């Protein structure tokens, strides 16, 4: 590493406690949040007022010049709940999205229905001339995702996909540091997981649809209460852990690596929650990302200079290859339902350091200098080894270990914005895009490629084989 870079990095560490404001990275437009006088009133039609819908709605009602004017949900109690949260006593309510799109006075549509509806709801909205925010995962099949891209192009309406880490000041700062400061050097592995000790279903055994005409529509679409309430458990409606959780983190991996995976293998199982769910409760997948040198990534990934001795041992040819040849980085993803120890995080590992990302904090660990070869100078003492590692656990000793994984290691960086979390920012930016006609950062293409990634992992696990993901698969 050059001297220059090292001192930049130290400067960065010194100022890292400061508030991170919006960072523009490469093609990413700067994301402005918080603007109080943000122009024209935007009227929103909302499809799906369940858990997520009502959660996001309570964020939207804090935004200036945004009004929720129509709600749609086929489940009457959730429609009622939405009415309570939307801060508009005159809101119009509908059970059928077709009717809402036809009759309501709206400028744009937010889709927070279950995954198997995303495609139908978003496409109908775009065809009705509305820009759309749709929750992740964008679609249940790649074909459907492609159709959504097509409809977006044909109608000229945009589709923002709810990959909110793209809007997190922490994640944006991390990506910026990796590319603009070469903080991690060559990344060879990203290890991410979302582990919980949690049944992941809504408890209700024995409940059924209430009688009454107002429940006719839900009866038409779902065979029983269980399938409506626990749509995440069935392949017909959801892609399980990969689409519900993995979609966020694999999007981060492909963002960090700046490309798409070229192959995936995986092993999944229903190992612990032995109820009648279909989806896996234990998914483990590995992706290969073939990284070609280009203008954006040359400094970050193709400028490593291993210590002299290693270089001499490997030879000039190996050194040259390190700077010019494509290489394959691996992304390992796990999500399980019977152990929460690791929680949710992404660990990005380069030859100069590691960044550990969570939604509330990012930590950076510098790599110790490359070790001397065994037959070089004296071997390191125990104390020297201990000083090198971020945390050392020796048997018998007591340690103050935190409940939060990795809490006791590394330096935190990049605080989020005061009073706004990444979801507030994602929504505020969506309405800015609606007003200005600007394309959203987390757009239909990113959403679509993310869907390809997670859906192909499900295929790999179900068919128990390696899936090649050729470049022709991506847009």
């Amino acid at each position: 590493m050059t001297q220059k870079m090292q001192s930049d990095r130290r400067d960065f560490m010194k100022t890292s406690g400061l508030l991170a404001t919006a960072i523009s990275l490469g093609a990413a437009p700067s994301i402005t949040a918080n603007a109080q006088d943000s122009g024209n009133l935007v009227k929103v039609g909302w499809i799906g007022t369940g858990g997520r819908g009502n959660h996001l709605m309570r964020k939207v009602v804090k935004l200036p010049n945004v009004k929720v004017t129509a709600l749609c949900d086929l489940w009457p109690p959730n429609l009622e709940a939405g009415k309570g949260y939307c801060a508009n006593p005159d809101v119009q309510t509908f059970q059928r999205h077709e009717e809402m799109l036809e009759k309501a006075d709206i400028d744009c549509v937010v889709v927070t229905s279950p995954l198997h509806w995303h495609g139908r709801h978003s496409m109908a909205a775009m065809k009705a001339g509305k820009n759309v925010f749709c929750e992740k995962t964008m679609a249940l099949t790649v074909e459907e995702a492609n159709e959504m891209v097509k409809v977006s192009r044909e109608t000229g309406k945009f589709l923002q996909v709810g990959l909110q880490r793209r809007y997190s000041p922490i994640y944006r700062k991390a990506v910026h540091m990796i590319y603009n400061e070469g903080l991690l050097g060559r990344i060879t592995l990203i290890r991410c997981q979302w582990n919980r000790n949690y049944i992941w279903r809504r408890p209700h055994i024995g409940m059924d649809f209430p009688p009454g005409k107002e429940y006719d529509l839900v009866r038409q679409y779902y065979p029983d209460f269980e399938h409506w309430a626990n749509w995440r458990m069935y392949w017909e409606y959801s892609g399980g852990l990969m689409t519900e959780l993995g979609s966020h983190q694999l999007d981060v991996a492909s963002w960090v690596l700046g490309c798409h995976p070229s192959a995936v293998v995986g092993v999944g199982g229903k190992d612990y929650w032995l109820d009648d769910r279909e989806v896996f409760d234990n998914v483990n997948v590995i992706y290969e990302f073939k990284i070609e040198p280009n203008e954006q990534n040359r400094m970050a990934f193709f400028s490593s200079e291993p210590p002299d001795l290693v270089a001499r041992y490997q030879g000039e040819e190996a050194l040259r290859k390190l700077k010019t040849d494509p290489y394959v980085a691996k992304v390992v993803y796990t999500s399980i339902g019977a152990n929460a120890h690791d929680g949710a995080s992404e660990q990005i590992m380069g030859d100069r350091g590691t960044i550990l990302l969570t939604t509330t904090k990012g930590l950076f660990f510098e790599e110790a200098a490359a070790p001397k070869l065994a037959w070089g100078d004296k071997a390191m003492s125990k104390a020297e080894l201990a000083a090198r590692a971020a945390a050392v656990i020796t048997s018998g000793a007591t340690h103050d270990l935190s409940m939060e994984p990795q809490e006791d290691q590394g330096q935190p960086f990049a605080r989020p914005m005061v009073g706004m979390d990444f979801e507030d920012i994602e929504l505020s930016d969506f309405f800015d895009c609606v007003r200005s006609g600007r394309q959203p950062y987390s757009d239909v293409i990113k959403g679509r490629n993310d869907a390809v990634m997670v859906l192909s992992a499900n295929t790999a696990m179900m068919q128990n084989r390696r899936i090649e993901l050729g470049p022709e698969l991506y847009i």
Partner: protein
Amino acid sequence: MASNPAFLEVHHRAMATEFSLLLYGDNKARLHWAAELALEEIDRLEHQISVFDITSEISGINARAAQEEVIVEPGLFHVLQFSKQLHEETGGAFDITVHPLVRAWQFFRKTGTVPDADTLAEALLRTSMDHVHLNPERRTVRFDLRGIEINLGGIGKGYAVDAVTAILRRNGIASAFINAGGSTFYALGTPPEQEGWQVGIRDPLNPDRHLEILHLMDRSLSTSGNYERFIRAETRTYGHILNPRSGRPAEGVLSATALAPTALETDALSTAFFVLGIEGTRKYCCSNAGVNAIQYIREGSERFQLYKIGFEKPETGEEL
């Protein structure tokens, strides 16, 4: 309700306290369903009002409201409006901007001395709901002074209990007891075949004894008292509840209980009544139908009196 009703008890840590819910119904599944939704709501509200989370809505308000009008989510706006109203009605005895004072006392607790006059005067300058302006049309909040901060420690549990109650009701639960930290309760309906949910108010001087046992139905109760939390400084102890007007710990009342239709009211009122003492409490109850109070007061060094205000029976001072 079926002769053998289903019952569910759940506990959840949030807002630096423990919430527990007792639910009755004829279908266990429905109880689970409703309880799950209720606990999710508590977490959401914690994220909204926590001052320790810099991305929370409250942190945003505290950071920005001195510079610009900040739009507030309707549920939280209602809390601010009620807090403002109560501040006026109690002559400033309840004040959600009291945190600079709390901090001054907390700091001096560490050093073992009482904060000096300058420190208190400085903190008092930044304590008053009068600096907080609400605009209901635009649903905004604005501070007219830098350094004002809102802290919902004295009302947040009530906010959460009411939200939980609404969710339980909406999901068909007719009999439940919601308990936030053993000090703020809501009794929804009654337990099967009983006239109400039984709540005992502990005697602060004798933890094995109850000052009063009540049966509640569709009603909230909160108690404030110097049970375990007090500040030890120099040669004496001070209660942890501060009088926002004087900047000093409130004295005289040992335990103040408020009863009202909502937990938002009782959570805040129990603190207000503690600060107001018996006369102020009586005045408030007289002009607010549906609110009553129970106070345990120190009158002289060894004399304690129990007052029940606003109950059907005429008020009596009971010596205990």
